[in-house]
């Protein structure tokens, strides 16, 4: 391991001159991190929304779908990457299969809970007003389930941001690449910058989605 030596012999936690000369690298890793996360969350939604609606309608689907994705979710990401690599190679596909699979479980649960919690009176009223099943789903049930669904998106996003730090194992970069560099070179700056950006990204995304929820679900605001 190459240990960096500084003039005063001490490796500070953040070496600002290294940081200022490596802004493009850091930004590229940050961008890659965001891209991997966004694909994983949107991919998870694309699968979990229809599956959740189906499992809400046909309760017999709940046990098999939640069970299957529950097993998937329990398998550690490093192991799941390793199980997929012989088939999908060292690629973004490998990472996204794992990350999307994890998010499906989180989102699926919340979609089902959200839809289950729509009051029966509301459904009766919608039926009485002449809503057909599809219109009732799209214009009454899903909007009322939105708070639970967005809560799921928040958890999925924050978890994904943390797990993506392991994507360097399959050569995908992201902020984990900076942490890895900090480890290999025993150099604190990239380690601290990578970790801090990761936490900041997670908290920013969480806050941003909280704002989205406030705007999307005005009726849930406390009076």
């Amino acid at each position: 391991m190459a240990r960096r030596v500084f003039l005063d012999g001490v490796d500070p936690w953040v070496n600002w001159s290294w940081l200022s000369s490596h802004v493009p690298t850091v930004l590229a890793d940050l961008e890659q991190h965001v891209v991997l996360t966004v694909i994983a969350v949107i991919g998870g939604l694309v699968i979990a929304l229809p599956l959740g609606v189906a499992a809400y309608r046909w309760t017999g689907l709940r046990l098999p779908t939640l069970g299957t994705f529950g097993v998937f979710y329990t398998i550690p990401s490093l192991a799941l990457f390793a199980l997929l690599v012989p088939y999908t190679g060292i690629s973004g596909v490998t990472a996204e299969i794992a990350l999307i699979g994890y998010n499906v479980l989180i989102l699926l649960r919340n979609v089902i809970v959200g839809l289950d919690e729509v009051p029966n009176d509301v459904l009766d009223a919608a039926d009485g007003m002449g809503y057909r099943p599809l219109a009732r789903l799209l214009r009454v049930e899903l909007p009322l389930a939105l708070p639970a669904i967005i809560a799921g998106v928040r958890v999925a996003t924050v978890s994904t941001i943390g797990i993506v730090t392991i994507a360097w194992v399959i050569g995908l970069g992201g902020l984990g690449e900076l942490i890895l560099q900090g480890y290999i070179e025993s150099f604190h700056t990239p380690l601290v910058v990578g970790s801090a950006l990761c936490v900041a990204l997670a908290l920013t995304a969480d806050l941003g989605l909280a704002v989205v929820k406030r705007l999307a679900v005005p009726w849930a605001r406390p009076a």
Partner: protein
Amino acid sequence: MDFLHRVFIWLADPAHWHGSDGIPTRLGEHLHLSLEAVAIGALIALPIGITLGHYGRFGTLAISVSNLGRALPSYGILVTAFQILGLGDAPIILALTALAIPPMVTNSYVGLREVNPDLKDAARGMGYRELAQVLRIELPLAVPLIMAGIRTSAVQVVATATLAAAIAGGGLGRYIIDGFAQQDYVKLFAGAVLVGVLALVTEGSLSLVERLLVPRGIRLQKARPASRATAFKTA
């Protein structure tokens, strides 16, 4: 010979079942690291969560600690602990403990908070002192959620312990990290199977313990605890 067959042969090879890089040794390291982290985490987290839940104070803090825990990058925490403490088990256990604490604090807080206030009044009316009330009324009723918190933590610690190998530690993750480094896909896959099975067995056996520990009287009235645990995944 097809790939899965070679993986099977790797797993069945007696050479992989003894020595310092053998499966029993690596499994032992993995369990040792995980157990120690969960035990230390529980000793720290449960008294905090139980106290806050009993008095109903600092609720936002007790809940948001889980959000914060989820935002911590486990790999970054491990490498940071490694930079501070150097080689050995100490940095791994420190990092794993940090990840074990949040779900246990949140769940034990919520578990005690959700105890029906009428029951607490009744306990007081019957002459229970505060400590007896906590130990004999509130804790038994909170067991389902507390246990769900311990299970969530334990499964995540076992999963994250796989990353110990990434900072020169032991455990079953060794096969995966080495498999990637040597591009030995058979070893990689075999290691992943072992880690996956261990995670599933941990989840399954703790769910069973959870079910056995729930007092019979409240088994029917509570929703299945498994469905109530918050999603918490760090690795």
